[in-house]
């Protein structure tokens, strides 16, 4: 039986098709059912399409102003939601005058009841004009529709068209109201298409080289991008544009000029790589940099594409020398530890094998919030016989997994982390990391170190109060008490 229904989900038997136990002899099509609507009231960990576009795709861009067209909540929650640091450096050698701009400000229309009744277009226009005035440094203005504006039907496309002309500045509308699509993945999709259709091909880079790449789907979580960039630059490769970690608005406009696109997060950003390939003949390559083995393999593939094989080997050798001993130490310590990876999307297939192969761990379960079929195929491909693969696990299922599979560690999100702790199991934040970056060679050591620090923290041995910590002593007392009681009864 490849599919499994958890006891806690017997009242919602539709869940069964979302939970698959890998059997190598199963046909290829046997996969968890995915990318469909969550069962209401099931305590999902999923988010909305607005989170997908602002929280993942556009929030990392360093020089644009974001105006959320919504009642105040979406604006408040869109503020500094993720850890994506930026430098003030711009491609023309200048500095963006407001440091940490993408983390510092969020703007919104704060819609009121009267706006809901009479429409919010006027307020949106005024807000965009004020945004331009408040932050004249910003190179573009991005606006977002939300549940309210989707339902009341404000024509945001017309507003941004009008104001782009009036302000002589790019104003974009991202039409991904929270209710659209089953998960945040819908927002990724809208983000990709909106940026491609409006920006790519509209500007030329200050300079080009024969070694220009787009690094797509790399959001610089906790500095991931900066590590990857150092490898590529040492090989002689120039990152012309990132999509979208530490990038500026203009970089997106000239993505068509790269020689190759590298797709890092293949769930949230393959769309734009495909669109660029289709329209501008820029080929794309899926890349995976989690762990030393995948990082090496993929740097070699990039080296091969550009004829920079030797340079790639140099970088690999240099980094391997740096991390080898530490990784050996962690492998010894983490050997046999059972891990459950609950990622948003691709990290479940990125990490399952490296944790086993390079750190000797045992991946007992993998799951994802918003993966699609292709992602689950990769997940299935990379896990061993008997591993659980779960689509959109809810918190009760999470509890049952802990009870049944007794993982030593869970890699998940902040919403799951503290529940997992309450059940006595350590949990690491895998979406935005604990002490990252986690990518590449040094990043893999950081991840191993965090896992070691969590699993071996003394707290897990101190959880319960022991009335009689010495069992021998304990036994002798019981014996004595028994004897005394017996004698007394005589």
């Amino acid at each position, binding site marked *: 039986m490849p599919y499994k229904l958890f006891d806690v989900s017997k009242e919602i038997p539709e869940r069964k098709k979302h939970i698959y136990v890998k059997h190598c002899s199963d046909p290829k099509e046997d996969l968890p059912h995915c990318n469909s609507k969550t069962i209401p009231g099931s305590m999902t960990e999923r988010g909305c399409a607005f989170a997908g576009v602002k929280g993942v795709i556009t929030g990392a861009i360093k020089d644009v102003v974001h105006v959320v067209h919504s009642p105040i909540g979406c604006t408040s929650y869109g503020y500094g939601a993720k850890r994506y640091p930026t430098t003030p450096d711009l491609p023309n050698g200048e500095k963006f005058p407001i440091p940490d701009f993408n983390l510092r400000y969020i703007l919104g229309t704060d819609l009121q009841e009267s706006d809901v009744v009479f429409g919010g277009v006027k307020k949106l226009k005024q807000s965009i004009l004020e945004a331009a005035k408040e932050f004249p440094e910003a190179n573009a203005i991005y606006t977002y529709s939300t549940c309210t504006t989707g339902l009341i039907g404000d024509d945001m496309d017309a507003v941004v068209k009008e104001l782009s002309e009036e302000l002589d500045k790019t104003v974009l509308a991202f039409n991904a109201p929270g209710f659209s699509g089953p998960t945040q993945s819908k927002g990724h999709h809208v983000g990709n298409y909106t940026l491609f259709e409006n920006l790519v091909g509209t500007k030329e880079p200050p300079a080009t080289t024969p070694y220009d790449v787009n690094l797509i789907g790399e959001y610089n979580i906790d500095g991931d991008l900066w590590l990857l960039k150092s490898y590529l630059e040492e090989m002689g490769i120039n990152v012309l544009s990132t999509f979208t970690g530490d990038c500026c608005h203009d970089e997106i406009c000239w993505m068509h000029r790269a020689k190759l696109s590298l797709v890092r997060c293949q769930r949230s950003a393959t769309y734009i790589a495909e669109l660029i390939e289709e329209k501008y003949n820029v080929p794309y390559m899926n890349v995976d940099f989690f762990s030393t083995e995948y990082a090496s393999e993929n740097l070699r593939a990039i080296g091969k594409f550009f004829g920079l094989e030797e340079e790639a080997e140099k970088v690999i050798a240099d980094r391997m020398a740096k991390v080898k001993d530490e990784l050996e130490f962690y492998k010894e310590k983490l050997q046999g530890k059972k891990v459950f990876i609950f990622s948003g999307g691709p990290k479940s297939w990125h990490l399952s094998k490296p944790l086993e192969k390079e750190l000797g761990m045992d991946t007992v379960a993998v799951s994802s919030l918003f993966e699609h079929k292709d992602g689950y195929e990769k997940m299935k491909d990379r896990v061993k016989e008997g591993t659980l693969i779960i689509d959109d696990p809810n918190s009760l299922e999470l509890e049952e997994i802990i009870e049944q599979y007794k993982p030593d560690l869970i890699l998940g999100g902040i919403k799951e982390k*503290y529940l997992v702790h*309450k059940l*006595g199991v350590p949990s690491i934040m895998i979406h935005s990391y604990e002490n990252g970056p986690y990518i590449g060679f040094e990043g893999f050591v950081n991840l191993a170190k965090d896992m070691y620090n969590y699993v071996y923290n003394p707290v897990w041995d101190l959880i319960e109060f022991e009335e009689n910590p010495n069992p021998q002593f304990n036994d002798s007392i019981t014996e004595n008490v028994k004897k005394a009681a017996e004698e007394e009864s005589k």
Partner: protein
Amino acid sequence: MSDINVMEKERTVTINPLKTCQPLGAMFAVTGIRKGIPLVHGSQGCSTFVRYSLSKHFREPSEIAVTSLHEDAAVFGGRKNLIEGIINLALRFKPELIGVITTCSSEIIGDDVIGFIKTAQQQLTEQLGEEKSKKINIIPISTPSFVETHLKGYDNALNALVTHQAQPGETNEKINVVPGMVNPGDIREIKHILGMMNLEAIILTDTSDPFDSPLRPSKAEMLPYYPKGGTSVEEIADSANSTATISLCHYASSGGETLEKKYGVKSSIGPFPVGIQNTDEFLRSLKNLTGVKIPEELLDERGILIDAMADLSSRYLAGRKVAIYGDPCMTAGIARFVGELGMEPSVVCTGAKSEEFVNEMKTVSREIGSSIDVMVGQDLRALEVYLQENPVEVMMGNSDGRLIARYLDIPLVRFGFPVFDRVGYHRNPIIGYNGGLNLINLLTNTVLEKIYEPVTHWKLQQ
């Protein structure tokens, strides 16, 4: 000179809000109920963003369900989602109370939430039988996101809870306390004060344990996990029979007013007991409402705070300008305390509009004898721009101002919600004399570390 200068928002656009929408406040209130689960009738972001915010601040689980509205619901209504959501939640989690919390989308769609709840209840009775299904209380809480703020959502939830659950019976000689959106440390401090006065209380609602729960797997309720504590459904029912209700915040007084109107339970509002005078007033109103004496031990605690103020405030704090931002109730309380320390709350800023806040700031201004710039219905960007022109020595507020403080190079003493870039703030009170002690320590240590240490470190020798 003693006056205030009210400064209202000059822009249409909001930049870095000092408020969020209603549903968060309702989810907060329902979390304080023993085996109570918030069920958000909206998109998944409406639950996920709130869970994310609460977990960031409290570092605790935050179990909130959602009806997952999508395009079909936008067109045909959310009937199916809500009924199915209630039934799934009831069957799998066996809660004692489900708070059905609306959002912008379900309010705009115009779902008949009360009708849908009735249908769900009927179906549950068919599935579980009368006895079991009766134990699951399902309360509609209307919280349109485009009206007022999260504070109104908290108030609406509280009002819905007592409206639907309070049951008149024998008088219980208890006192109801509506603490507002405060931290576990604050609720524990209120319980400590009431305990010293030998008063039994019903806290509406008691988030202290749910938002600060022990890690003890052997004692935890699992499958489903429920945090320790919370106000029981029976206690909420019994709130109709209490001697009085004290609502610590003006924004959260509707529940108390409903209990007064329907069951004659006296309602008393504020002040938010931060600092000396507000806490004194809180004790006096407890005494007046119940007739109990204020014990010596409590006055000794007051004396310890007075001792700390005498030792520290003239030497390190007096005359220093402070900017304070946050919700109107806490901000007003903190401003008064800062005044009691001889400091100057030169600017206070809130995201929510509140007449009481303006009046309270008038009082503080009179007490300190200097003018206060009062920003109401404003945002953090407005405060930032103001501070660029009118610098202060210390900022007090939540972590959302952390980058503003950093780039203005003004030390930030944290309080309120959310605080995610420092630890322990949810556990340490700001309420009561002990809360005052905590605040004066935070303020003074910040001044010592950021103002004295870098320039005149020798002054710290003794």
